[in-house]
């Protein structure tokens, strides 16, 4: 185990290296390379266009979609930086924010616009020190959330919320069967269950099923 003094002194070279990269306009990011490997590399900083802001990320989270992007399920040109979820600070204002990963959704609750995309393919995503996003996709980070918690919820929570309320329109007295206990969407969907309706999460894996039944959702 390292002493506190040792770990503090070890941080300075890292900070110097980070300052040097920033001066050169370089950042660390994870890229999906052809054949689906994840590669941790130094790449150019994102250059924001009109209406876009650069976020200095503190945390990101993994979604099933990222695995599909890596495996080439989508026809996106490679290499690209995957990742839909992220939280960090706006480089221009210093504001602590969480990213809404639905780009160009539009005004309709029911259906997205034709140019709707999810951040992290084809647009470069949050597996990086920096990401550029439209200013409209930046929301204040709830102060009770840690960086990790803030980065964990957007895509899964949006998916669960839309499935339950926009599409299924769950009502008082109803019970929802949530498949895939342990997934981000399942955990979020089960948590949305309130006093007026109930969610029951299940899974073909007995350990995940028992965790869900024990309230681990």
């Amino acid at each position, binding site marked *: 185990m390292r002493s506190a003094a040792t770990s503090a002194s070890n941080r300075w070279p890292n900070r110097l290296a980070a300052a040097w990269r920033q001066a050169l306009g370089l950042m*660390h990011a*994870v890229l999906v390379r052809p054949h689906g490997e*994840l590669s*941790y590399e130094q790449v150019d900083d994102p250059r924001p266009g009109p209406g876009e802001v650069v976020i*200095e*990320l*503190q*945390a*990101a*989270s*993994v979604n*099933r979609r*990222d*695995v599909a992007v*890596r495996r080439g399920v989508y026809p996106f040109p490679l290499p690209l930086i995957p*990742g839909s979820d992220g939280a*960090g600070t706006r480089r221009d204002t210093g504001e602590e924010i969480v990213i809404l990963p639905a780009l160009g959704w539009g005004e309709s609750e029911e259906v997205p616009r034709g140019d709707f995309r999810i951040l992290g393919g084809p647009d470069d995503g949050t*597996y*990086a*020190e920096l990401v550029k996003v439209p200013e409209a996709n930046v929301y204040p980070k709830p102060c009770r959330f840690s*960086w*990790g*918690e803030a*980065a*964990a*919820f957007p895509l*899964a929570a949006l998916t669960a919320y839309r499935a339950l309320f926009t599409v299924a329109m769950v009502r008082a007295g109803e019970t929802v069967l949530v498949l895939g*206990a*342990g997934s*981000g969407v399942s*955990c979020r969907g089960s*948590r949305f269950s309130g006093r007026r309706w109930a969610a029951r999460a299940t899974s073909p*894996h007995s*350990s*995940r099923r028992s*965790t869900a039944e024990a309230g*681990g*959702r």
Partner: protein
Amino acid sequence: VIDSVRPLAEVAGAHARMEAGVHFGKLVLGIA
């Protein structure tokens, strides 16, 4: 619900955990 937190550089481990279906909750990557 957070399953685990690991540094960005170790994201391959998070993908492997998700593909194995053994996680319970979100896999978080620390960046700064």
